[in-house]
C-alpha cells in the first residue's frame, strides 16, 4: 500500500471514529451537564428530602419519589397490554398474513410509530379523558408499534428450517407458534425492556392525559405524575433550587432509561450466543 493510500486510510479511520464517537460523547456530556446543573442543590440532606412524598418545589420540598412511582407504574402498566396484543400481532404479520395483508399491516404500524406523540395525546384526552387509564392508553399507542416491529424482526430472523422441521414432525399452527415463542423469548424480553424505556421517556402526550398530580398510590381513574411531565410543566417557570432539582429529575429519568437499555442489550447478546 502506497504512502498516499495509507494516509487516505488513516484520514478515513479518523473521520469514521470521530463521527462514531459523537453519540457516546454526547450521552456522557448530557449526564455530566445534568449533574452539574443540579449539583448546586446536592447536599447531605438532599437524599432524605428527595425520598419524601411531597412535591412542592416552590416551598423547596423536592420529594421525587411519587414522580418515580408514577413513571415506573405507568410504563409497567402498559407492558402486559403491549405483550398480550403485540406478540399475536407480530405472529400474524410474519407467519399467517398474506403478502397484501403484510403490506397493509406494515403501513399501519409504520404510520402509528411515526405519529407525533402530541397528536396521540390530544386524541386520547378527548376520547377517554384525563386519568391514569388514559396515560396507559397513550403509552400503549406510542410503544406498541416499536414492540411489534422488534418482535417481527426476531421472527423474520428465525431459521426457516425450524418451521419446515416442525411441520414435518406434524405440529399444527398452535404447536408451531408455541415452539417459535420459546425460540424468541429472549428477544421478546429485550423488546419489553426497550418499550419500558420508551414509556419512561414519554413526556408531552402524557401532560395532556395524566392529570399531573404527584401521588404514591395511583388508581385507574385518578391522576398520575411522571418525571418527564414534571419537567415539561415546570422547567419554563422554575428558578433557583426548583430549576436545579428539575435537572436531577432529568438525570433520574436518563439513568432509568439507560438501565433498561443496558439490560435489553445484555439479553439480546445472550440470545445471539
Amino acid at each position, binding site marked *: 500500500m502506497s504512502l*498516499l493510500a495509507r494516509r487516505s486510510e488513516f484520514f*478515513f479511520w479518523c473521520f469514521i471514529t470521530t463521527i462514531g464517537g459523537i453519540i457516546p460523547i454526547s450521552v456522557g456530556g448530557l449526564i455530566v451537564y445534568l449533574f452539574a446543573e443540579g449539583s448546586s442543590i446536592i447536599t447531605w440532606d438532599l437524599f432524605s428530602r428527595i425520598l419524601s412524598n411531597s412535591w412542592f*418545589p416552590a*416551598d423547596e420540598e423536592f420529594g421525587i419519589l411519587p414522580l418515580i412511582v408514577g413513571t415506573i407504574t405507568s410504563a409497567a402498566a402498559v407492558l402486559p397490554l403491549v405483550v398480550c396484543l403485540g406478540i399475536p400481532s407480530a405472529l400474524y404479520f410474519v407467519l399467517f398474513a398474506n403478502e397484501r395483508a403484510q403490506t397493509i399491516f406494515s403501513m399501519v404500524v409504520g404510520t402509528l410509530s411515526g405519529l407525533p406523540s402530541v397528536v396521540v395525546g390530544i386524541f386520547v384526552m378527548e376520547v377517554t379523558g*384525563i386519568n391514569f387509564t388514559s396515560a396507559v392508553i397513550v403509552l400503549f399507542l406510542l410503544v406498541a408499534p416499536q414492540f411489534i416491529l422488534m418482535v417481527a424482526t426476531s421472527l423474520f430472523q428465525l431459521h426457516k428450517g425450524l418451521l419446515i422441521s416442525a411441520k414435518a414432525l406434524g405440529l399444527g399452527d398452535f404447536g408451531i407458534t408455541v415452539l417459535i415463542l420459546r425460540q424468541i423469548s429472549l428477544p421478546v424480553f429485550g423488546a419489553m425492556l426497550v418499550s419500558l424505556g420508551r414509556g419512561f421517556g414519554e413526556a408531552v402526550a402524557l401532560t395532556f392525559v395524566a*392529570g*399531573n*398530580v404527584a401521588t404514591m398510590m395511583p388508581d385507574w381513574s385518578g391522576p398520575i405524575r411522571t418525571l418527564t411531565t414534571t419537567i*415539561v410543566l415546570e422547567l419554563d417557570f422554575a428558578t433557583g433550587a426548583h430549576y436545579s432539582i428539575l435537572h436531577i429529575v432529568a438525570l433520574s429519568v436518563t439513568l432509568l432509561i439507560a438501565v433498561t437499555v443496558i439490560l435489553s442489550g445484555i439479553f439480546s447478546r445472550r440470545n445471539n450466543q
Partner: protein
Amino acid sequence: MTVRKLFTERKLVEKASYRQPLLATFSLTSILFLGGCSSEQKQDKVEITGASTLLPILQSAGESLEKRYPTLRVQVLAGGSTKGVKDTFSKQNDLGAVARELTLEEKDQFEVFPVAYDGVAIITNSSTNILELTTEDLRKVYRKEITNWQSFNGVNSPITVVNKSDGHATLEVFLQHTQLHRREIKSDVIAGNNSQVIKSVANIPGSIGYVSIAEALAAIEINQPIKLIQLDGVKPTLSNVEMKLWPIRRTLYLVSRGEPSPWANVLLDFLQSNEGSQIIKEANYVPIS
C-alpha cells in the same frame, strides 16, 4: 504520455480522493460560519421573553410596529414570568414580561413599566349549572371539603379541581386572593399554561379551574364548552376589572434592567398610545391609561 506524467496525474487523483471530502467539509464549515456571522450582524430588534399572558398584546403590537418600521423585528418568546425575570437579570432580552406582582428585589433591580390589567376568572365546564360562587366556596372546593356540585344546588356531578403547576403567576395570584396555601389544595388535575387549563376544564364534565379572563373569553368565542362564574356577586367582565370591582386582578408588566434600548422605548411608547390601548382592549385586557 510519459511515465512521469502518468505518475503525477495518478498522484493528483490519489490526493483528490481524500482532499475532496476535506475541502467539502472545510467549505461547508466556512459557509455555516459566515452565515452565523452574518446573522450576528446588528439588527433593529426588540426581544421580549416571559409571561405567556402578555403574548397576544405583544404580538399584535409587534406586528403594527413592524409595518410602521420595516427594518424592525419584534421577537416575543413565552415561557413564564419567572423566565422573563431571569432573562432580564442576565440581560438576555430587551424586555421581560411579568404577569405577577414584582418582589422588592425585582423592583430595585428593574425599570418597571405597567402595561395592562388582567383579571383571573373562575371557569367551570359548561355542564355545571352553577352561575356564582363566593371566595369561601372556592376555598372549600379547592380543599375538597365540598366535592359535588349538588352542595351548591347544582347538578349531581363530582367536582374535578383543576390547578396550575408551581411557578405560574396565575397560581400565585389565586393563592393570594383565596388565602390558601399550595399544600391545602387537593388537585385532581394540574395543568401548565392557561390554554391547558381551558382544555382540561372543557374536556372534563364538572370541572373547575382559573385562568386569565382574556384567554377565557377568547376560548368562549371559539365555542369551547366552558363558562365564567360570578365571584362574590361580581360579574367577570373587563369593565369590572377596569373599575377594580373584580376581586382577582393583576397588573401585567414589562421590565428592563437599566434604561430600555431605543427600540424597546418605541414599543413601550406605542403600548401607551391610543393605537396601543386599542390593541390591548382587542386582546381582552384593560389598558393602564
